[in-house]
């Protein structure tokens, strides 16, 4: 039986009625087959307008409603809700956009009216074949996976766990803590970084709701929002944490010394090591790449001295599976690769350091116990040059973006240098000072005024060694003169890059990256912690360079977004998904190959749609040679009838 359709034409004040003859649209549509009621009204979206729709659906016993008004992006939900309250299925209500796509872009009233009629007729034809649909309900696994155990991941994990949600936290390194645990003091308050982070790390390790996988990596993620399955590779650490008593006998006898990652190569460590004293989990790890061999014949000295027999050379990589409902990416950053900065002698001269290395020098737990000494000769540098924007804000050669934290940490470095070396002179080369943040501007000003750090606006062209000094060639663009400084130490504020594993992880999660390689947020203003993949959220520098307060705030934001999904008894998914006509399907699997969401499979010789995975894009429908697969409520027949209505009336 043919549907009884009502058409409601909105004036939108003069926004539509000023260019489109709304009375004529209503009149023409009333003569269109299947339309049993038409009316025009000044503001359909107003309460009286909505009530008019509700009233007429009931009075006229309408099976479908077309509202000719503004873009469906604005009021589709409004009118579908109104239709629903009158007892109609919301998918029996469609919007004809006669404002943005018609009245606002044309001036000739006759032509605009003619076009509005065609658009509305097209939507009536579409609605004729719409099926009533119900949202698809999806069960939710009330657990979250957090990838990355720096401050972003730690904060997200704690916020979630304290909201009574089980958390799986995965960290690729032997300990959690990220870069923040390497820092000395934090701007602008000069809090000790380790002192404020280690309580949180301990809380993570003791929290009953947090399952911690360190020295582990996410290898594969399948599923969809509410129901992901993650495969996690646990790398063997060859030490049983439960047996290890932290006696440190093993490192005493280990004959191998390699650069210590935690001190960024400023010190060495043994092949069996604990990254730092407060490491979580508190245990040793055997670096199998550095170890002369797991064969006891080759060495095995550590095994010999280990009293509790915690060392197990036969440990194998293990893959564990975890089911979660949401994922948070908190993979942080790496510093820009030093090989890109040959002109500053980074990697060539031992006294040219990056920001993180300088942090280690400043740190009380660092290689020099907090004394600032040159790595080359252990002398105190009396003149020190800090260079900002190294690799940042340089679209021609390096990264085009601002790394955001360098202005502040350089000011902190210069200030702390002066606290240690009272008679020393610090210079800072900068492009601009970007100190947007609470107390930040004042902090930079104090560094300049109270500490006497000399700020020079300009770039450095070259750093080279001469008679034991590092000669810095730069320019002061404010004074308009070349500058040469014979320094004892140079510190480079290297650009921040997305963590080295970000690209691989983005593919695993099907989450997009931006042009710089950071994870792309769903909307730059309004959805900054959501990725473009449903159920995958972002926290910290994985999304863009940011400082610790911003990271902590974003981590809290990501946590509440996860809660907003996992607190629901079930998730609703749009029912506008593909459906297969089994009589026509030959099981050729062309649709399976093109589906961007892996939502299709061949079951018993016919294509089968996983309605939860399907996003309703219709790529399958355009691919199928036999029109055996189509998207609900936008079938080939509906498109054909829309075309007929749009073109049929043209002279």
């Amino acid at each position, binding site marked *: 039986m043919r549907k009884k359709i009502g058409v409601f034409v909105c004036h939108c004040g003069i926004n539509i009625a000023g260019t489109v003859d709304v009375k004529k649209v209503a009149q023409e549509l009333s003569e269109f087959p299947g339309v049993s009621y038409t009316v025009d009204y000044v503001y359909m979206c107003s309460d009286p307008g909505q009530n008019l729709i509700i009233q007429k659906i009931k009075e006229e016993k309408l099976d479908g409603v077309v509202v000719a008004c503004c873009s469906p992006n604005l009021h589709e939900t409004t009118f579908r809700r109104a239709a629903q309250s009158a007892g109609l299925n919301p998918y029996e209500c469609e919007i004809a956009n006669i404002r943005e796509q018609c009245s606002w872009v044309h001036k000739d009233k006759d032509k605009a009216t003619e076009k509005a009629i*065609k658009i509305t007729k097209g939507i009536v034809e579409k609605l004729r074949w719409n099926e009533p649909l119900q949202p698809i309900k999806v069960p939710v696994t009330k657990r979250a996976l957090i990838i990355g155990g720096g401050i972003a991941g730690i904060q997200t994990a704690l916020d979630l766990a304290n909201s009574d949600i089980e958390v799986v936290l995965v960290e690729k390194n032997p300990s959690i803590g990220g870069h923040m645990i390497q820092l000395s003091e934090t701007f602008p308050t000069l809090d000790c970084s380790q002192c404020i982070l280690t309580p949180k790390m301990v809380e993570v390790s003791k929290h009953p709701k947090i399952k911690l996988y360190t020295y582990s990596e996410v290898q594969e993620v399948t599923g969809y929002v509410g129901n992901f399955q993650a495969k996690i590779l646990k790398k063997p650490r060859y030490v049983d944490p439960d047996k290890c008593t932290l006696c440190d006998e093993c490192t005493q006898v280990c004959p191998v010394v390699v650069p210590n990652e935690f001190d960024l190569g400023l010190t060495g460590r043994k092949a069996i090591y604990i990254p730092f004293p407060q490491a979580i989990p508190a245990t040793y790890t055997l670096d199998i790449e550095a170890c002369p061999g797991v064969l006891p014949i080759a060495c095995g000295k550590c095994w010999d001295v280990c009293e509790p027999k915690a060392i197990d050379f036969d440990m194998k990589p293990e893959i564990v599976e975890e089911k979660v409902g949401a994922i948070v990416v908190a993979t942080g950053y790496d510093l820009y690769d030093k090989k890109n900065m040959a002109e500053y002698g980074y990697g060539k001269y031992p006294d040219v350091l990056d920001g993180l290395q300088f942090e280690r020098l400043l740190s009380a737990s660092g290689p020099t116990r907090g004394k600032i000494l040159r790595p080359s000769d252990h002398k105190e540098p009396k003149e020190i040059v800090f260079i900002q924007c190294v690799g940042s804000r340089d679209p021609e050669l390096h990264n085009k973006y601002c790394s955001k934290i360098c202005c502040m940490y350089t000011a902190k470095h210069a200030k702390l240098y002066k606290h240690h070396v009272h008679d020393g002179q610090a210079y800072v080369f900068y492009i601009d000072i970007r100190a947007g943040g609470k107390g930040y501007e004042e902090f930079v000003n104090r560094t300049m005024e109270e500490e006497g750090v000399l700020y020079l606006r300009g770039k450095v062209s070259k750093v080279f060694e001469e008679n034991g000094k590092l000669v810095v060639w730069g320019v002061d663009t404010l004074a308009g003169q070349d500058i040469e400084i014979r320094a004892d130490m140079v510190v480079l504020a290297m650009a921040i890059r997305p963590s080295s594993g970000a690209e691989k992880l983005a593919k695993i999660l099907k989450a997009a990256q931006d042009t710089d390689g950071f994870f792309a947020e769903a909307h730059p203003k309004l959805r900054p912690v959501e990725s473009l993949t449903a159920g995958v959220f972002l926290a910290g520098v994985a999304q863009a360079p940011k400082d610790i307060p911003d990271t902590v705030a974003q981590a809290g934001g990501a946590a509440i977004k996860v809660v907003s999904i996992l607190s629901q008894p079930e998730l609703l998914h749009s029912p506008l998904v593909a459906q297969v006509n089994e009589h026509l399907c030959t099981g050729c699997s062309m649709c399976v190959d093109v589906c*961007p969401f892996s939502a299709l499979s061949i079951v018993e010789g016919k294509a089968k749609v996983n309605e939860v995975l399907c996003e309703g894009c219709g*790529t399958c*429908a355009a691919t199928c040679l036999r029109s055996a697969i189509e998207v609900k409520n936008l079938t080939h027949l509906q*498109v054909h009838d829309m075309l007929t209505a749009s073109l049929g009336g043209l002279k």
Partner: protein
Amino acid sequence: MNSEHEPKIVAFLCKWCSSAGSDMAGVSRLEYPSNVIPITVMCSGSVSPLYILSAFNLGADGVLVSGCHPGDCHYIKGNMYARRRMALLKELLPYIGLEPERFQMSWVSAAEGLKFTQIIKEFVKQLKPLGPQTQLRRSL
């Protein structure tokens, strides 16, 4: 007579970029010829070549398919399939006696209202000298 001909155009616009881009043209009150009837689809990748041939069959003088920029597809890669399919279709149109200029594919993001109006203006200009499309029009 041909120069006076007002071509009838159907534009298949993807919901997320090009339809939103045409909305942006509206919000910015950018005027363009009224010859074009928009049909919003979920993705440019859902536009079957059959839709385009149907449109010509039903009397369209020109057909436009517009999607998200390559790499920006809301559905990851639907527009890539559209690009391949439409490039092939355009190659084939001359074999059925149709000027390939009657068919066009474009990329318009949700922010590119101005670009959308420029594309429509150019397309109308391009179609006018070709006159009415009669090769595929179904005789009624």
